[in-house]
């Protein structure tokens, strides 16, 4: 009776289990990063910001006075666009062409054509929301903007985005690391892609952080700063 039965042992399965746990532990990262939904109107930030040099605060007018950055009312768009119609003449913005997007805008705003005002059936544009923190997080735009944090620090090179996507992960670790390690206006302006000349006089239109260039501005990081 000398049969040599294979009496296999269990180890290995254990190792796999542990590995799985460790992986799952790190899977807390924001799932919505790089999300880039299709908007009802393909609003081109580059044209408005880079070519026309419009200020962020022209449309997002509450960003420096409120928790919310504020969205441009349809009337604000029409303010310019009842001059600038769908039929685009040749200009430094490009050759003569027809813009479907502006046509869409006219449809929303119920504008007959260039020069006409908004009609009675105007309805707001249902923009797709991209950047969103949970309701139990209170993110005061005013506090950050007034501290000299450039929009691009959190929203990325938005002035270059033909279609906006979520730049940052927006998870808690991401917020906190900036609050703890601090933020230097210089980096912010570089992030914003300012030239050296611009950096000398930031045209962000808000009071610059009263800090020497290169100095890091740290922020509170206790829970009740954002959660209440």
């Amino acid at each position, binding site marked *: 009776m000398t049969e040599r039965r294979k009496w296999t042992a269990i180890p290995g399965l254990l190792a796999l289990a542990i590995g799985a746990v460790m992986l799952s532990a790190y899977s807390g990262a924001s799932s*919505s990063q790089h999300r880039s939904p299709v908007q009802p109107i393909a609003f081109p930030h580059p044209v408005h910001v880079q070519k026309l040099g419009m200020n962020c605060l022209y449309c997002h007018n509450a960003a420096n006075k*409120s928790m919310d950055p504020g969205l441009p009312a349809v009337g604000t768009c029409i303010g310019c666009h009842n001059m600038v119609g769908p039929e685009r003449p040749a200009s430094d913005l490009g050759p003569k062409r027809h813009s479907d997007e502006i046509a869409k805008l006219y449809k929303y705003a119920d504008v007959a054509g260039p020069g006409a005002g908004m009609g009675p059936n105007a*309805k707001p544009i249902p923009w797709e929301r991209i950047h969103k923190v949970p309701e139990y997080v209170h993110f*005061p735009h005013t506090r950050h903007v007034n501290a000299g944090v450039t929009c691009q620090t959190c929203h990325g090179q938005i002035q270059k985005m033909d279609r906006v996507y979520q730049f940052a992960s927006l998870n808690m670790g991401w917020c906190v690391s900036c609050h703890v390690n601090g933020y230097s206006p210089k980096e912010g302006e570089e992030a914003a892609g300012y030239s050296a000349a611009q950096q000398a006089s930031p045209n962000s239109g808000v009071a610059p952080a009263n800090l020497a260039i290169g100095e890091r501005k740290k922020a*509170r990081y206790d829970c009740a700063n954002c*959660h*209440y």
Partner: protein
Amino acid sequence: MTQDTKKSGVKRREFLKVLGASSATLAVTACEEPTGHLIPYLVSPDQTVPGVSTYYATTCRECSAGCGIISETRDGRSIKLEGNPDHPLNRGALCAKGQSALQGLYNPDRFKTPMVNENGAWKAITWDDAIARLSNAVSAAKPQAAGAVFINQHESGSFPRFLDGWLASFGMPAHLSVDFEADHAAIEANRRSYGAAWPALSFQDAKLIVSFGADFLDGWGASVPQQLDFADARAKLDGAPRFVYIGPRRSLTGLNADEWLACKPGSELAIANALSGKGSIDAAATESGVPAAALQRLATELAAAKPALVVSGVSGENALDVALAVAAINQASGAVGTTIKPAQALTGFEGIAHTDQVLAAVEKMRAGGVGIAFVRGANLAHALPKAANFAEAFAKVGFRVSFSNVPDETSELCNLIIPDLHSLEQWGDAEPVKGTIGLQQPAMDPVYPTLSKTVPAALGTADLLIQVSKKAGSANQPADYRTWLFTQIPGGTTAISAALPKGIVSGSLAARTIAAAATTPKSTSIASTQGDLTLITYHSPLLGDGRGANKPWLQELPDPVTKICWSSWVEIHPETAQRLGIDRGDILEVKTATGTVRAPAFVYLGVHKDAIAMPIGQGHRSKANVPDFQPKHDDSKQTQWGYGRYARGIGANALDILPLGTNAGGGMILTATKASISKTGDHRTLPSTEGSARQHGRGIAQAINAADLSKPPAERREEELPGDASHAFLPGLRSPVAADAQGDLGSPTSADQGKNKGMYAPNEERGMSKRRWAMTIDLARCTGCSACVTACYSENNIPTVGAYWQNATLFADARPGFNIERGREMNWIRLERYFEGNLDGKFGEDFEARFVPMMCQQCGNAPCEPVCPVYATYHAPDGLNVQVYNRCVGTRYCSNNCPYKVRYFNWFGYGEADRKQYAFPEPLNWQLNPDVTVRGKGVMEKCSFCVQRIRESENRAAAEHREMQGDEFTTACAQACPSRAITFGDAADPNWSVTQLIADRRAYHVFEELNAFTAVVYLKKVNHPAAGAAPARA
């Protein structure tokens, strides 16, 4: 509001719905919620910034006083009501009723459209249809126009005159302006003695305050200004006037008195005469059952006190005589002009129709002489005694129109209901104080706008009447009510637009041509009664005549005296209870000549042993048989008759057993009838927030005698307190606790002090720990009115949990206040009412009541913090004891370890819209404060010192690149407090006034011996015992 905001109004609401869906709905449970849409304004409204509040000054219409309020409006929704600091009447304070107006505005049971009752069935109709029907009815009633009756809830200002004018234009008599809470006897006496319905009362200038059942702190007259002044008087500490309360029941006002003389009901007259010298002390003593010695002492005191302030709020048969006798005493003691100021009369109380006039109108209806009747605001079917048999009489009226915007008992009896706008949605005015006009402007677009092509989107009753007149073709009608109103106010449109920010214009309004006062009231004594006890009915300080009952905040707010909510009760003296073998909570049957009601017993020291007391205000019922409200399958078509889901079927209506009778002042007789009680054998746990009414000598509410204040500490008669409290860091909470706020790191004695330990190090570059938020509460000022509680509910999105459906789904008891019975109320700040003395509940032995507002004490060494396994509560560098909802897993260990028991747990998904226990059914969720997270189920919550306000002003200061200034902002409770008892501020910065108060000689901490280093400092109550009499001790 400008034209384009009107146009954008509807759209804005869409925008708001989305915003609501995102910001108001529950935050804590959902982590990966859909990001949703962003809906911009169509045309951005001028002067509003999204996410930043705008403030509209307007006028409160919850009682006749007409306080000035400021509506905080965010993104087009009114989210909070606060007192208007610039208003001469209420100087920034606001009572619980006033703040709850918000829930009248957002009441989920409001009518959305006009409704008509066609052969028994109600159906919604369009506005145009409604206007057409009304004008037809009016013209149809032309023949008997003289018999028409218009009953309006009393309000001062121009509307009554406008209304009279309109009625006249159709040949109808002037309207009846009713206020069932008004004390007609006092008004009549005032008018005769001082020539004003309600002269301003100055408690500060009085040397002695004597009240004959006048509850000037809870509903008698203008509570808020009276309370402000009374608190200021008490704040004079040893210089403060003594306050004696005479009456068979000790109300909230009575509990604030230094001495209570419990007289037999109806015997006040004898005492008043004795005090004025017209009668003999002994006779009064025998009649009233009050010891002669006490009366003698009071008489001598009164004689010495010049000036004194004696007020009468008796509501018995001889009410007018008492009031007149009292007036005589005042005139004798030179009170007129000093403590009683007819010059600054509160004109809000002019022109209230006497109850006997109302009853006469009812009789006229019964006689069939009324072709058309209008009811606006008033709810006669509920607020008149059953004995008046209003329903039967009203049914005889040809056509019945109601302008009520909620389905109350009266509107249910009508043919046509054209819902009025809420006072926060329409224009109006008031003259609260002679010479000052308070403006009423819309704080927001109507919640339910008038959807019609032909009429404006906001159609209040006044505008509606104008439309009707236009239809009837009567000439020279104003374009709309606002236009007409502006012509009435001195200075016209320019003055108004200048005044709108402050909400007040100086000047007077023209008086009504028909002064209801001119008619001398007719007294009808009540029918013969049997029973061994006198029934005292009184208007609930919160629900009034029942108007408050459909507002969950007021239902949930415990009655300041009995601490019972979501119920009615019978107050009975311990001795009587013992004699009849009645325990707290036994269901009693109260029987009078006119009927019986059932209510649970509340054994109360403060009621005469030969009397029982019942509050008025509950017991709303619907005529139609409306099924119990089921939030889960609630089709909004079901009209919640019987005054809405929150009011219907709660408690009993004391007026059902009140025999009809009016006193010589024209007021209803509330205290004269006899009653007998019997046990039904049923029993229920009272939905009360009261655990033990005694503080067992634990020094929670401490008091000191006025005489002892001036003495050095050694000689003071201090109370025995448990443990040996270390008074080391008092007075001057500042340094040790401010250091303690940073734990060892900030403590000057610690080795780690100032080491690089991040945010807690005092010299850390973020400068996070330089502040130490703290609060003082002056018990000498606090009257226990509970306005702070409602303010907290409103500011912090606290759910109400008492509705009968807010329990579990399976095998769960569904009765009103069941969650309160189980101690699950969520009041972040609660008012504890402790009794001192008279431990064995003997009648005739006086006792003392002490009120303590108790909220999170924001301990420096918080016991709740170290036990939390997930850091969900911890100590912020600025001294706050923080609760992080989204981190909380709900072990509830913190609450177990909290000596003050001020932490509250979300047992159900009160904040989750899809749940049966949801506390904010649409549109109540519009009231939610966007700055405060709505808590989901399973998380702990507690007072946060209004951290959102702290952050808001920090952000403002940062945006303006400046430091925060002293007293720059305050918490919701402190802002609302009509006694100015609460002060909030930075204990580490002398610019805040709280730092001075902390150094007060009366300062103490609750449970100091636990060394929690609390940030809330209480200032001892000051007692004014009668000369020789020792004050009650625990």
